[in-house]
């Protein structure tokens, strides 16, 4: 949180990006179909509310962007400043340390959600304001699998040192695969299979269903069940991978190399 308070510009960017991407996609859509853009959009997505549909995807994407980048970059900074070994030598569990790095992201995530999705809902469909709370809960559950991704990511940084490249690849992969601006049904079947392995796919889909199709957590129990299963699986597997890399790094002395 101190980092964001010190550099408010980067925080503003996270808040502005969902609006900018939505504007960009909508502008391109308007060019392709002119006045009929909204009609074609509604035919493909089942809703004419372009703003809320796109902002939900944007907000979830930004959330994963913030979490992945924060963990990657902060770990790299510790490596460069030579404090990574000291942190890892402290008598606390590694998982606590790594999750601790991401805890501030819950606050950031909440603000992104309120500014992007919250404002879009209030402006375009104020009567459905109540759905926001359930959508927010889905978003929070979706953070747990992301912690698992971060564990793996931490291992990758210890091993390969270059967080920015991996952040760049992971961010765009998430954007393409999870249906940020389109339903995943548009993707080829084999890509849809990969999408099904990513938690954000369910988060985006569920949030859209709750806010735009008047569904609730109970009626979406199938997706919620998968999301909870991923919330348990990702951190467990991710931590296992991290521990393996960490053990190897301890033998080869990788921690202090950068």
């Amino acid at each position, binding site marked *: 949180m101190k980092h964001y308070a010190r*550099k408010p*510009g*980067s925080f*503003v*960017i996270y808040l*502005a*990006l969902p609006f*900018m991407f939505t*504007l*960009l*996609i*909508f*502008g*391109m*859509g*308007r*060019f*392709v*179909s002119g006045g*009929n*853009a909204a009609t*074609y*959009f509604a035919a*493909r*997505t089942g809703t004419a509310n372009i703003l809320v549909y796109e902002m939900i995807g944007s907000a979830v994407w930004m959330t994963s962007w913030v979490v992945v980048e924060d963990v990657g970059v902060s770990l790299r900074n510790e490596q460069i400043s030579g404090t990574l070994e000291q942190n890892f030598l402290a008598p606390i569990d590694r998982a606590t340390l790594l999750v601790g790095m991401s805890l501030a992201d819950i606050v950031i995530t909440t603000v992104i959600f309120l500014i992007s999705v919250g404002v879009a809902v209030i402006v375009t469909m104020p009567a459905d304001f109540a759905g926001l709370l359930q959508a927010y809960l889905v978003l929070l559950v979706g953070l747990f699998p992301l912690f698992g991704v971060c564990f793996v990511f931490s291992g990758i940084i210890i091993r*390969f040192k*270059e967080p*920015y*490249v*991996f952040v*760049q*690849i992971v961010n*765009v*992969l998430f*954007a*393409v695969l999870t249906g*940020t*601006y*389109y339903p995943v049904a*548009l*993707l080829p079947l084999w890509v849809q299979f990969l999408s099904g392995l990513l938690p954000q796919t369910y988060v985006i889909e569920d949030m859209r269903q709750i806010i735009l199709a008047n569904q609730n957590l109970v009626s979406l129990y199938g997706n919620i069940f998968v999301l909870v299963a991923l919330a348990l699986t990702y951190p467990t597997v991710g931590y296992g991978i991290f521990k393996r890399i960490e053990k190897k790094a301890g033998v080869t002395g990788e921690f202090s190399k950068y």
Partner: protein
Amino acid sequence: MGSSNVSRKRLALQVNSQNTNSLTKIGGEFKAAFLKDLRSYVRYPAWLLGEFISTPLWFFFFALGVTLFSPTNLKKSTLDSFNFFYFGFIFIILFSTAVWGIGQSIRNEQQAGTLEQFFLAPVNRVTLIVGRWARVFLTDVLIIGYTTVIVYTLGNERPAMHNPSLFLFSLGLYEIGLIGFGLFFAGLTMRIKSYNTLSNMVFFGYMILTGALFPVDVIPIPFRYISLAIPFTYFIDLMRNAALSTSTILPASIEYLTATILAFSMLLIGFVAFNKIEEQARVKGTISAM
């Protein structure tokens, strides 16, 4: 009379020789700067890999986003849109060269603590930056070519090119403008701490306002005036006109003249601004301050 002619000829030879020497020197500096940057780049294969994986993915990301709005029964319209976005994608990659390629280079050197060493070297600063631009332009061309092959392989879509020589001319103007803009941006890194924030804002502003991904006439009227005040709007418009025979914002000949003046003005302004900011930073001792 005869001796005065001889000394005049000698003087002329001396002047020519000095010109040749300084040109050779600049050429040598440029080559050294280009090779230095190329070597640094290939030293980190992860970066190369990252760019080659993520660039086509960004293209598909935008293309899929637009698919939601497109009619399914109009094949002709989809093909035109493909070419429009394909060229927009190229303009964006080249623009990112100026913002992250040229501008960011100063910040990278600052972070690595090597900026002072470079500035102490007996070479022109601008040559160093232009050398960097040349390397980034080379890798951009490779990435564009590679993405084109992928798009063609997956979607059987072939980019159109109506008038290649006019396109190259417009591209040249765009690149001259980009170098000027990049120099200005490189200077800003010595002044502004939140460089990433500024570069992101400028980059998105460019994508939304200059007609890179959709024509400026889609933009609502008060904002369209901003678009028309941005030089890049005209470079993009001319390149599209040359490649796809689209209509131009101004009458074509006037727009070419305007774009030429704008390109060289941008280069001049960028050069002057960079030198001025650098001079101020040297006086204040803030060249390495981040």
